[in-house]
């Protein structure tokens, strides 16, 4: 048997689960680019070092982003990946496709690139991996003709993304799909022509289950929520108990705020203590539902650990009605972005800026009131400090 060129990568393909290596090997049968990519990756595994140069600047006409330049640092060994640029393509909101659309994408990419795709990248976009500079414009033109557009990259508004929301999910408190689409169409300039201090991500989750992980992975998280009590159907509660669900152990004891009491017959919820974690609703969907008045909570500052450490976002608007044309939301977004753009250092995310200058400065700049819901950990970090003039007023009283 012939000796493999990629013994280290073969190990990845040998496991229990499907591996990207198998896909790349399949592509390598017809694309020299994919073959050299495997070779370079094997070399990286062997030498324990990446072989991509950092950052190229390539693009298409009229756009400042959407294409990420990639060059091999050993083109003499792997000439077919000397240039291996990535295209970020704006995904359809909620990731709904017709098979025709997927076929179109693959046809365009087979024609212009390596044929390798990543659906979907962590920004949510369709990632088309590997093409050369001379193919970029034509590829973009062909994608446009099929109804696709590039997504955001660099110091820009990144492609907004949303959970499937009301498209499939019964818990949707807001129309995450429409909100995301509306934001995407409203901020085309901010997506395609970078002019921010750094990246800015918006994600929309239709309920607090937060299936798009907006709280951790976006600078501005829009999460569906409700006002009012969780409606309880006691007959259904009894049915769950009869079916073997240990309500005390699995529902009440795992409630993070312990706001539920079950006496063996009826369930009571102290809604004023509920933090809308969705645990009880997820476990007993027939018995419990989100409350009647729907809207969204807005949170700010989530990011991954580059420069400063990772940050989870925190509440800035506990409840906002979210209906087209989303004027209140978009006014606030523009105020936030304007302040951040004027105030931030180069490559400072909004969460880092707020951490540096303080929440009270941010709140004053964007015209939001300080509210108890903004306190992250009660009695440990009340980081909303008083302004000196507020303290004077209190002394006079």
């Amino acid at each position, binding site marked *: 048997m012939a000796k493999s060129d990629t013994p280290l990568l073969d190990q990845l393909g040998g496991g229990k689960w499907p591996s990207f290596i198998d896909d790349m090997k399949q592509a390598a049968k017809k694309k020299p680019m994919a073959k050299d990519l495997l070779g370079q990756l094997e070399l990286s595994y062997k030498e324990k070092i990446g072989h991509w*140069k*950092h*950052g*190229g*600047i*390539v*693009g298409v*006409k*009229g*756009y*400042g982003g959407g294409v*990420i*330049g990639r*060059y091999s640092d050993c083109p003499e060994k792997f000439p077919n990946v000397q*240039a291996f640029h*990535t295209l970020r393509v704006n995904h359809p909101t909620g990731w709904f496709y017709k098979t025709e659309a997927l076929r179109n994408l693959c046809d365009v990419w087979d024609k212009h690139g390596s044929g390798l795709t990543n659906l979907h990248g962590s920004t949510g976009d369709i990632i088309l991996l590997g093409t050369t500079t001379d193919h970029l414009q034509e590829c973009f033109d062909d994608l446009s003709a099929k109804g696709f557009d590039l997504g955001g*990259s*660099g*110091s820009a508004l990144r492609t907004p993304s949303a959970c499937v929301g009301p498209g499939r999910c019964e818990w949707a408190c807001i129309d995450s799909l429409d909100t995301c689409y509306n934001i995407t169409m409203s901020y085309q*300039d901010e997506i395609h*022509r*970078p*002019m*921010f*201090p*750094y*990246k800015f991500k918006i994600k929309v989750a239709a309920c607090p289950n937060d299936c798009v992980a907006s709280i951790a992975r976006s600078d501005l998280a829009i999460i569906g929520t409700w006002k009012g009590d969780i409606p309880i159907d006691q007959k259904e509660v009894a049915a769950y108990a009869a079916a073997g669900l240990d309500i005390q152990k699995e529902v009440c004891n795992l409630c993070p705020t312990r706001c539920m009491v079950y006496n063996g017959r009826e369930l009571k919820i102290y809604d004023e203590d509920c933090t809308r974690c969705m645990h009880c609703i997820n476990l007993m969907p027939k018995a419990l539902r989100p409350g009647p008045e729907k809207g969204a909570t807005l949170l700010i500052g989530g990011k991954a650990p580059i420069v400063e450490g990772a940050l989870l976002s925190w509440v800035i608007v506990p409840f906002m009605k979210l209906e087209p044309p989303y004027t209140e939301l978009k006014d606030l977004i523009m105020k936030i972005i304007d302040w951040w*753009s004027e105030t931030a250092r*180069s*490559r400072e995310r909004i969460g880092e800026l707020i951490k540096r200058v303080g929440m009270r400065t941010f709140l004053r700049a964007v015209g939001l009131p300080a509210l108890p819901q903004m306190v992250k950990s009660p009695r440990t970090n009340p980081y909303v400090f008083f302004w000196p003039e507020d303290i004077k007023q209190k002394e006079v009283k």
Partner: protein
Amino acid sequence: MPQIELAGKTYEVDEDGFLQELDKWNKEFAQAYAKNEGIEGQLTEEHWKIINYLRDYFQKFGIAPMIRKLVKDNGIDMKRLYELFPTGPAKGACKLAGLSKPTGCV
């Protein structure tokens, strides 16, 4: 290192076409290179205003300015900037101005 020939002279550039020997920049370089960046005909006064601003800023601070600053200091909006430099300020304008390749986040 790739080379590019413009108006009878040879320049060393990186793989994206950014000038490697910054002291070799001259106006003829910018004018001859403009076509590659989607600019037809002669560079106008508006183009030169941006190019000269970028060069001054780079000489002073050693980096390219943030785009928002470029826009504000020159009283120009993004739409006009992309009309002047269709491949964008980071790629087109900085390249013609002979600046090092701007670093950025993908």
